[in-house]
């Protein structure tokens, strides 16, 4: 028998760690989607560079949506800081061993990158802007004309998207103190989850978009119109939706595999990792893991989308919504269960 007592009762640390609450899962979720959107947007830009799909909406809506979500994510990050007035200190240095340092700099670069990526086609979609800022229209045309520039932009999006999508998982996985996170598959898992959530969001947007002609003018209506409307006369082609579905099935399958590897890794590593596995399989975490993340968030949308592709069931928005729910749940699980996870004391010494 082992009885351990402690006199320590520090807020947010005892009885278990609770320093990160809703802001961090929100950021991780949103950041993952942004990463997914950047990668998918980058792929769209590559196609644009090859001259394919000139009216493909990915190349516009992906970066714009990503830009807005990034703002939301960075706001959440800022709100999480306990010493907000000193936030500038992170930009005085690069700490090579701290994934958060890398991530902070990546975020700073991603911000203008997304703006530039969105600006390529924005004048097209938002005529009011093109009229008011002709420089923008000229510049946008120049970019569209240069396949080299488009390719460079595309690869920058893809590379930084991968960095953004993977660094948070790496950040968590470096912490020996939190055995649930201390598995090397966490980074890739977050990346793949971000990709599938990004694809789901794009799919959702594609399905909801309806063209309105003539295109709305003016600052406000034009801006909103640019965001929610596809370029061109037609709603996004069916091929676009199918491509997204196929991509998403791929991402979900890989994600499922990685979750399986996560569990196997935990169970077969140290006693502390095995205890973390037990924690994940207990109480509210078990329901969230199996019921929401795996069933609702992966397996069911996987099956539904497969059936849709095989034309067995009509195409709906349900799989996309479920994937998004699953994506958030994964972050929620990791942040909350992870903070409860700790190195276990040996019972016999």
């Amino acid at each position: 028998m082992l009885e351990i007592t402690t006199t320590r009762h520090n807020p947010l640390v005892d009885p278990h760690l609770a320093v990160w609450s809703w802001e961090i899962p929100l950021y991780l979720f949103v950041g993952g989607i942004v990463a997914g959107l950047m990668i998918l947007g980058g792929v769209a830009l590559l196609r644009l560079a090859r001259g394919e799909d000139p009216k493909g909406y990915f190349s516009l809506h992906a970066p714009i949506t990503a830009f807005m979500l990034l703002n939301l994510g960075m706001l959440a990050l800022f709100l999480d800081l306990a010493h907000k007035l000193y936030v500038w200190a992170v930009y005085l240095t690069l700490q090579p061993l701290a994934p958060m340092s890398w991530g902070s700099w990546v975020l700073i670069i991603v911000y203008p990158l997304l703006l530039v990526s969105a600006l390529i086609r924005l004048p097209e979609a938002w005529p009011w802007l093109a009229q008011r800022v002709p420089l923008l229209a000229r510049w946008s045309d120049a970019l569209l004309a240069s396949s080299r520039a488009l390719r460079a932009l595309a690869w920058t999006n893809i590379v930084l998207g991968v960095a953004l999508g993977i660094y948070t998982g790496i950040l968590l996985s470096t912490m020996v103190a939190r055995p649930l996170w201390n598995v090397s598959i966490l980074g890739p898992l977050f990346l793949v989850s971000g990709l599938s959530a990004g694809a789901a969001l794009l799919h959702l947007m594609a399905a909801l978009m309806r063209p309105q002609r003539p295109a709305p003018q003016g600052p406000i209506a034009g801006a909103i119109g640019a965001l929610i409307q596809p370029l061109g006369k037609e709603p996004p082609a069916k091929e676009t939706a199918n491509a997204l579905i196929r991509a998403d099935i791929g991402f979900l399958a890989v994600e499922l595999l990685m979750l399986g590897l996560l569990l196997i890794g935990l169970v077969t590593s140290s006693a502390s990792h095995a205890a973390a596995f037990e924690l994940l399989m207990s109480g509210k975490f078990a329901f969230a893991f199996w019921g929401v993340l795996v069933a609702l968030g992966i397996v069911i949308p996987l099956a539904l989308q497969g059936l849709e592709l095989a034309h067995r069931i009509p195409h709906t928005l349900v799989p996309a919504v479920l994937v998004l729910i699953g994506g958030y749940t994964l972050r929620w699980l990791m942040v909350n269960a992870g903070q409860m996870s700790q190195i276990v004391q040996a019972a016999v010494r």
Partner: protein
Amino acid sequence: MARFGMVIDTRKCVGCMDCVVACQTENDVPVGYARDWITTEVRGEFPNLTMEIRSERCNHCDNPPCVYCCPTGASHVEDFGKTVQVNANRCIGCKACVSACPYGARFVHPKGYADKCTFCLHRVKEGKDPACVSVCPTHCMVFGDLDDPASEASRLLRTRKWHTLLPEAGTKPRVFYLT
């Protein structure tokens, strides 16, 4: 250059919390927070029992995960004594270090920065021991230079059985418990 550590005799420690209270007054620690604490471990079944009592704090590890994860360098290893310290003026309050410490030794100060035991560097620089070491009525705590073979701390580590906390975490802590 010195490398400070602590050697604590768990046989003598009675768990009275003098070290906890002394640290709080010496360092103006806010009420409700503690930079050090008492842990007891009881093993066995009535009436065959053993108990180890430990005064715990930040271990000022040689391999400190709280330093590696800090995005601003606020959490750093100080040259003097190779102790781990936090520069509050560079801390953004991201709490990665609080998560990264396997010992739960850090906390978020009400003012927003990460806080923890400093080995009372301000006292050590004046040639005194940290407050917890100086107050202990059982004299169970020794503070000193682990790189100096002639220090009392080094001598104790040579002549007594000891263990550290969570050695499997790989942090190479510098607080040693004599048994």
